[in-house]
């Protein structure tokens, strides 16, 4: 109960702050429309009859890439929200004020990121909405339960990486190698813009180690073709494995970082 009201307070606070910058909302949604339109016209140049690996998802290139960009937002959010929020609260000095209340740092970090995930979800829905309304993408097959399950596993496994990255920020303040490495590689290797099958074999190896690869594959099947949970079992199993490995690992690393910062007295430094 107490936990829930804390979480709500964080979301409320973030909503109040963000909505005071309302121009930013309008521009970000305009940006979504423009990026969707860009890919729509690019897809017109492409003859999807030849794209065997795209056709595996039962539709043309545009629906394929629309889902890629709509849901890769979760990835960049997970990479940046934990470390970014901690850093900005350190700079304003509000982190120290939170830390002397009976609220754990882990609660603070997770609650701070929730607004970003909510906003990312709104954006993802807007991508799909624009896709359906303006560009006639067919979502009637969508299996909502399977999509939500994959999405949940995606958020949990990616958050593990995000929390590890926040641990680096707590100790080193700036420049964490984790999110840098994962961010530069994921856009390319995870099949956001093109299927990983078109990569040469030796490059394709990297994509197997990135959770986003499995998320996007599963989401496309579930959203465009209505695959059931049973049919998506391979993707779900891999994502689940990522969660099982990354969640405890991130908690461990985070605890270690917290201890380091408390010893050096730099918990609230930046």
């Amino acid at each position, binding site marked *: 109960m107490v936990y829930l009201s*804390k979480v709500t307070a964080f979301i409320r606070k973030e909503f109040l*702050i963000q909505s005071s910058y309302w121009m930013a909302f309008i521009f970000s949604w305009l940006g979504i429309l423009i990026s969707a339109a860009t890919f729509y016209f690019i897809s017109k140049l492409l003859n999807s009859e030849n794209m065997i690996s795209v056709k595996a998802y039962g539709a043309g290139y545009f629906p394929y890439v629309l889902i890629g960009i709509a849901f890769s937002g979760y990835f960049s959010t997970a990479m940046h929200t934990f470390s970014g929020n901690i850093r900005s609260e350190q700079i304003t000095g509000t982190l120290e004020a939170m830390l002397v209340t009976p*609220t754990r740092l882990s609660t603070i970090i997770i609650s701070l990121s929730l607004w970003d995930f909510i906003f990312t979800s709104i954006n993802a829905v807007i991508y799909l909405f624009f896709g359906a309304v303006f560009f006639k993408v067919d979502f009637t097959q969508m299996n909502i339960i399977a999509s939500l399950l994959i999405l949940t596993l995606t958020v949990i496994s990616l958050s593990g990486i995000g929390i590890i990255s926040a641990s680096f920020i707590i100790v080193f303040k700036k420049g964490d190698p984790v999110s840098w490495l994962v961010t530069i590689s994921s856009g390319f290797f995870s099949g956001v813009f093109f299927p990983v099958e078109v990569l040469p074999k030796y490059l394709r190896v990297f994509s197997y180690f990135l959770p986003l690869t499995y998320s996007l594959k599963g989401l496309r099947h579930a959203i465009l073709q209505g695959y059931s949970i049973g049919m998506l079992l391979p993707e779900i199993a891999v994502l689940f494995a990522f969660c099982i490995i990354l969640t405890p690992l991130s908690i461990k690393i985070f605890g270690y970082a917290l201890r380091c910062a*408390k010893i*050096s*007295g730099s*918990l609230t430094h930046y």
Partner: protein
Amino acid sequence: MDYAIETSGLSKEFITPRIIYRAIAHPFTKQKTILAVNNITISIRKGELFCLVGPNGSGKTTFLKILSCLILPTRGNAVVFGYDILKKEDKVKAAIGLIIGDERSFYWRLTLRQNLSFFAALYNLNPLQSKKIIKELSCLLEIEDMLERSFQECSTGIKQRLAIARGLLGDPQILFMDEPVKSLDALLRRELNIFIKDKLIKERGKTVILITHNLKEAEQLADRIAIMQKGEILACGTLAELRAKINNPIGSLEEAYSKIIVD
């Protein structure tokens, strides 16, 4: 449990540059150890107003941060309101309020009320309790007309009063105040000092540890005063005891301070 705070051999050494950095960024700089808090053993009674004075860098803030579980001590331990700071962090935090004279640490785009309600939730208050205490505290600190204004529009004095209000939200038994009235005008300073003494200590039986550079204020307010230098408590006691220490039964705290620090 007669004591609000008991410390035994509390010490903190800061190592700079930190080991991880040294290996990468400063391989040739010599490592330096700063003894910020040195073997402090004191007991502070419940309901006491305890003042901590000392030159810049004498370790006053570090001492309070250790007691607030923000910094881990290198040696020694402390018990705050009956709870071990190393083992019962949550309990300690529920018993304390930390007020720092740094007035930046709020959300600038939110109103004063929104700021306070956010922190009230972190102190486990439900919306009803939070509304009630915000009303009470804003009356007390005379900011009730400002509550709907955004934080960025407020003067430094108002911001500092808001920081004091925040420290009191959780109705803490022990208050740590690190130069809380630094930018308040003389009149308000006096009112606030009276508030600490009469409302917090006498009426509600709270314990206050106050760091200040204003020796006159410390002299008037404190039940006991500790003079710190280089992490050590050089002298600690009532004004009369400090006077006895310098063999001047009518001397001011300022006199005692300068004699003890020089020696």
